[in-house]
């Protein structure tokens, strides 16, 4: 088990390093002048130079790369061009807000999707099954900003159930925060429901057809017991993987939802950074999302290894 964990950690670090290098490449692929870009064409040359020296943007690329990797190893993401504050201090509160939204979305999606996935699998080929599969296919293929915009037009503008500006003012109680967050969260639920339900359905169908399920039924176990003890244990592994992959994507799709609902999370930080060409802030926030994704897939792999001894032993 420890060897498995160790191997998995090493490969995460390698992937993260590749990711950071790729980001560096994308950001530096065009010969740009960050000081000039940020301060605008009218700014005097001296202040542009001063700016570039301060942030090391005038050094050779290879040196910049080495420096940024070294800083990264110490989990230092640098300072924002626009405000001069450290990237972490800007990102942290926003990340917390986005996290709240993401957790609410997942708390609603996971039980709902697993329930409907199992429901569909047990009625395979019947109308209820086709309905779940088709609904999932349709809803998960629509971009989340579209779902968010439709939800907002219908529920927050026409019927006034929710809030158009979803950032709760400071000091709002947890229960009233719910009213702010529910519709942006629902926009994400609609996307992820389909993926998770389809994956659960496929896993359950596979496990139901396996010999061990048949044996369990034949030896006289009740169908509930077969489901709990034999089917679900095996069927949920792919579902867990999908959920963990989606946690990373959740932070990508949150950008659109946050923009529609005027929510001040990591998405709005990224969009602001894009608008201001604040490259360190942009790079830092994207990397932090990458790290979250790594951690969630790592956690999922461990969970699967814990549930399924075959994987645990095979890997080590």
């Amino acid at each position, binding site marked *: 088990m420890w060897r498995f964990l160790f191997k998995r950690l090493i490969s995460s670090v*390698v*992937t*993260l390093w*590749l*990711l950071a290098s*790729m*980001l560096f490449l*994308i*950001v530096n*692929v*065009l010969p*740009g002048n960050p000081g000039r870009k940020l301060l605008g064409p009218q700014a005097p040359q001296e202040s542009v130079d001063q700016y570039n020296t301060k942030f090391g943007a005038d050094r050779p690329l290879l040196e910049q790369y080495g420096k940024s990797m070294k800083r990264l190893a110490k989990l230092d993401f640098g300072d924002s061009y626009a405000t001069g504050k450290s990237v972490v201090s800007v990102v942290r509160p926003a990340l917390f807000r986005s996290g709240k939204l993401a957790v609410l979305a997942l708390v609603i999606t996971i039980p709902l999707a697993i329930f409907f996935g199992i429901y569909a699998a047990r009625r395979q080929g019947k109308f209820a099954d086709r309905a779940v599969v*088709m609904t999932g*296919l*349709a809803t998960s*293929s*629509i*971009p*989340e*900003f*579209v*779902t968010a*915009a*439709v939800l*907002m*037009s*219908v529920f*927050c*503008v*026409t019927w006034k159930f929710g809030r*158009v*500006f979803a950032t709760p003012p400071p000091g709002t109680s947890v229960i009233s925060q719910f009213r702010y967050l529910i519709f942006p969260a629902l926009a994400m639920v609609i996307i992820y429901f389909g993926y998770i339900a389809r994956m659960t359905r496929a896993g359950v169908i596979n496990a139901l057809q396996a010999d061990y399920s048949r044996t369990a039924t034949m030896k006289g176990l009740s169908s509930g017991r077969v489901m709990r003890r034999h089917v679900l244990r095996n069927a949920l592994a792919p579902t867990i993987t999908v959920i963990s992959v989606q946690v*990373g*994507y959740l*932070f*990508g*799709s949150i*950008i*659109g939802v946050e*923009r*529609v609902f005027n929510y001040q999370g990591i998405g709005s930080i*990224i*969009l602001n950074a*894009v*608008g201001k*060409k604040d*490259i360190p802030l*942009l790079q830092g926030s*994207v990397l932090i*999302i*990458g790290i979250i*994704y*790594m951690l969630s*897939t790592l956690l999922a792999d461990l969970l699967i290894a814990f549930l399924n001894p075959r994987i645990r032993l095979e890997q080590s």
Partner: protein
Amino acid sequence: MSDTSVVAAAGATAAPPSERQQARRENWRLVRRRPAFIIGLVILLVWIVCALFGTSFVPYDPFETREIAYARPGGTYYFGTDQTGRDVFSRVVVGARDVLKIAPLAAFLGVLFGVILGMFMGYVGRWFDLVSGRVVEALLSLPTILIGLLAVTTLGKSNPVVIGVVAVLFTPIVAKTVRAAVMAERDLDYVTSAKLRGESTPFIMFREILPNIWGPIIVELTIRVGYAIFVISTLSFLGAGPPPPSPEWGAQVSQGYNDLAAGFWWTTLFPALAIASLVIAVNLIADSVQAALEA
């Protein structure tokens, strides 16, 4: 999915051309009968007609501004008018053009790159597979939208850039699928006999293996078209698309969503529904193609 089609499809790999053609025809017949496929195709065709001939049948000029800003949807303006009095219906119809031009091209390029990379990863293997496998995983570890946004921001907003970025983003995903398909083929008898005949590696890859993995590649292409529409309209909503007067759907939502707070829902809702209907249509088609080709 009748048993005969399974046999026919399985036999198709090694069968003479006439039999393989027959199997394909059989599969096509299966696809055509699915209601999901028909619905998807009808919606897609409607949007293609709008894209091609929209300018000649829309009731108003989609770019012409009028005195009546925010007219409610009704008999005169079916979908109402926007903040500068432009007719939303005409803009939605003409807006089909942009996404239908960019998305299939981006998907096609992404699949092309992905097939080439995946063929090499699966067939040549060894260190090449190991190294590119790592890079592919790193690329896959980030939400497509984020990298796309970052790349379009640094490279500049223009259609060729968006097409290129989306294609590169799709490459690793396609490569992964193609690699798996190649791995399943490369130890089969026909590959071994081609090797013994002394055929060159590129010949084996592209003339022997490629014709046998068309199924997953076509499935991947149809799925990618759907995702390309998803990614491109999202990028354009986030400000990395065509600039304001453009009737592109994502751009329209991004111009309209600020008016939602004031109660003007129609400038956002109709282009949003247009995106949703197109994406659903393409995915219904992709799902049917997948079900038929993998039968």
